[in-house]
């Protein structure tokens, strides 16, 4: 300053100003571009999934006039035993044959019968079981159509031709006839939300996987968030700062990089083989995912604990608060938003994970909707994975629909956490 006059300084500042402002603009531009990129990625993924999956929410149903003919059924009374071997297939077949009386020949009849979902038989049985008085009567019912029919009908709206796939030209003709006469109708697919998995696409639902996911996540959340936060608090606030703590820190960071399937191996060894917990259970899944998400939660919790200014700790300590009180009353509330972020990301990861679940038997075909954390169950991503791997064409849209359900769960879960986080956030 002794040798720089004020004007000189001013000149130098002015000289660089334009440049600095350009940099500022570029920097800001990068910021906007980054966010735009991220948001765009979200939108692209969403539109992709929704465009593929939305059609799964409707389902083609077929109307049939069925007669509960005791002769066809081969039963006299409606009781459990007779129902078990009653020939409901025959009832459906009769109904179809009556609708298309001039179909003959084994092959053609087979084609004809395949218009209706194989699940129709069971629906019929349940109906008769619930209303025994129907025996001998005739009624008009809607059944799920077969998945091939469904695929064809849906493709009709896309193009004149429609996608035949395995459907023969003759069958397509029948379908068109039925469609024209209103005996075939696209309806909201309730099955998808009420059923468990099925190998028949038209019977397959997301309910079991959804419940499985919820149970698993519940276990994970209940364990991983408190444990993660507690561990972070201990390490950040109580543990003496020495080489051991460093080791633990490195060790936790390292756990985050352990491939998730290895957690599956660990879970298999500990929870299933040693503690003899049941396979395929949300309890074990939750435990494994807890181990997997812990590092994420611990790391983010520590980061946010670190970012609480020491002056606040000092102020509280100076008031005679014990360390525990300092943490619980001052540090934790301030660090909570960051911890919630960790939880959001950790839980999102847990919600989407399949690999470790393979080892503990959750990559499985499970029809029955689980009703507790020890019932066999699968989870949404596994369901998606399994459907994505299925040959049936109709599973393609269901895969996307399942992804939509998963995202809906994710968004609901996040919304709660984000709302909480927003409430807790403050700058000082």
């Amino acid at each position, binding site marked *: 300053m002794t040798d720089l006059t004020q004007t000189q300084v001013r000149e130098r500042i002015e000289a660089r100003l334009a440049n600095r402002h350009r940099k500022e603009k570029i920097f800001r531009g990068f910021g906007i571009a980054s966010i735009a990129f991220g948001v765009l990625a979200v939108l692209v993924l969403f539109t992709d999934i929704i465009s593929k999956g939305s059609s799964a929410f409707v389902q083609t149903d077929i109307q049939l006039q069925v007669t509960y003919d005791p002769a066809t059924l081969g039963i006299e009374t409606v009781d459990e035993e007779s129902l*078990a071997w009653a020939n409901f297939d025959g009832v459906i077949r009769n109904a179809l044959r009556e609708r298309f009386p001039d179909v003959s020949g084994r092959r053609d009849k*087979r084609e004809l019968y*395949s218009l209706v979902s*194989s*699940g129709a038989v*069971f629906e019929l049985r349940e109906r008769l079981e619930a209303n025994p008085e129907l025996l001998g009567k005739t009624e008009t019912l809607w059944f799920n159509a077969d998945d091939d029919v469904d695929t064809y009908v849906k493709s009709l709206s896309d193009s004149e031709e429609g*996608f*035949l*796939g*395995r459907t023969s030209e003759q069958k397509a003709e029948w379908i068109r006839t039925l469609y024209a006469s209103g005996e075939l109708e696209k309806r909201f697919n309730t099955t998808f939300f009420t059923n468990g998995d*099925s*190998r*028949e696409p038209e019977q397959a639902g997301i309910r079991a996987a959804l419940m499985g996911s919820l149970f698993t996540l519940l276990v994970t959340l209940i364990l991983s968030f408190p444990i993660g936060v507690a561990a972070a608090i201990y390490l950040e606030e109580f543990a003496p700062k020495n080489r051991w703590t460093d080791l633990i820190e490195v060790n936790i960071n390292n756990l985050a990089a352990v491939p998730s399937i290895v957690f599956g191996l660990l879970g298999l060894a500990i929870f*299933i083989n040693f503690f*003899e917990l*049941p*396979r*395929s259970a949300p309890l074990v899944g939750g435990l494994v995912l807890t181990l997997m998400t812990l590092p994420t939660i611990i790391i983010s919790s520590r980061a946010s604990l670190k970012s609480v200014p020491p002056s606040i700790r000092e102020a509280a300590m100076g008031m005679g608060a014990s360390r525990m009180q300092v943490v619980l009353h001052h540090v934790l509330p301030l660090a909570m938003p960051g911890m919630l972020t960790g939880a959001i990301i950790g839980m999102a990861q847990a919600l989407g994970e399949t690999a470790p679940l*393979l080892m503990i*038997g959750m*990559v*499985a*075909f*499970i*029809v*029955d909707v689980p009703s507790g954390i020890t019932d*066999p169950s699968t989870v949404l991503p596994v369901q998606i994975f*399994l459907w*994505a*791997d*299925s*040959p*049936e*064409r109709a599973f*393609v849209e269901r895969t996307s629909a399942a992804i939509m359900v998963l995202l809906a769960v994710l968004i609901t879960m996040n919304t709660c956490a984000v709302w909480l986080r927003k409430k807790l956030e403050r700058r000082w």
Partner: protein
Amino acid sequence: ARDHISIVGSSTVYPFTTVVAERFSRSTQFKTPVVESTGTGGGMKLFCQGVGESTADLTGASRRIKQSELEMCNDNGVDVVEVQIGYDGIVLANAKTAKPFALTRKDIFLALAKDVPNPDGSESLVANPYKTWKDVNPTLPAHKIEVLGPPPTSGTRDAFVELAMEGGCKKYDWIAAKKSSDKNAYKSICHNIREDGAYVEAGENDNLIVNKLAANPNALGIFGFSFLDQNADKVQGSLIEGQEPTFESIADNSYPVSRPLFVYLKKAHVDVVPGIKQFMAEFTSERAWGEEGYLADKGMIPLPTPQRQQVATNVRKLNALTNLAAK
């Protein structure tokens, strides 16, 4: 106590066991079996761990049980009942937008083996020099060789190697001669797949391969017949030895690349876990695995009728498998 049947094993057999499981549970009072897809080897490991309610009752396999696995089973007190349930065709397919391929197993061998007989005709091996299909066989198109197939860890790949590659490999007499003289050399010639990028290890998701093929008309893909069956609008199967891969041609064995599928049953569990017998009865019933059964609908190629009967009796009698030679 576990009151549902637990099934593990091959991802190839999974679609078939699951259908049966579903039908079984809907038509009986038993709980739906839980079917895990763990891969053949993984399934065997779980299955042969021992007996008791924490171990699986059945395992699916897309290949026959190995001697070592059988020994492990037996060592752990597991008596195994073998049930061959049908066949799976392995197809080579390309996009519908491209021309269909007509290949021989020899073409396949030459295109995909790591080392091939010297093109000059001498009885020596050279690193696979072929870049395009035309190089392999002048009647084929001049596309770059690009085959999407399963990784070495997959059962499908094993079957493909054994049936398609070895089948072509054997066509060279001097190599075939080695089978008796130097078995190792023979296998290493016939079974090694090239690793220079022409063969792309594409994972085990067959739908993905189908979609990749649709996007890339020059590529061929290797996958199970059921995927061809369901995606006839996107891909077409290549003719092998003049045979189109169809349900019929695989069933009557004229299409050369198909492999057997198995389910193994733990004999000791039959009286312990409710429903095993009934489940197997459903599995081996005509409406399931028959020629017009629902398994065939799902793309499984049924066994010939006499063999079906034989297997069914075997299952009913629960004859344990003691040594593999007796096939």
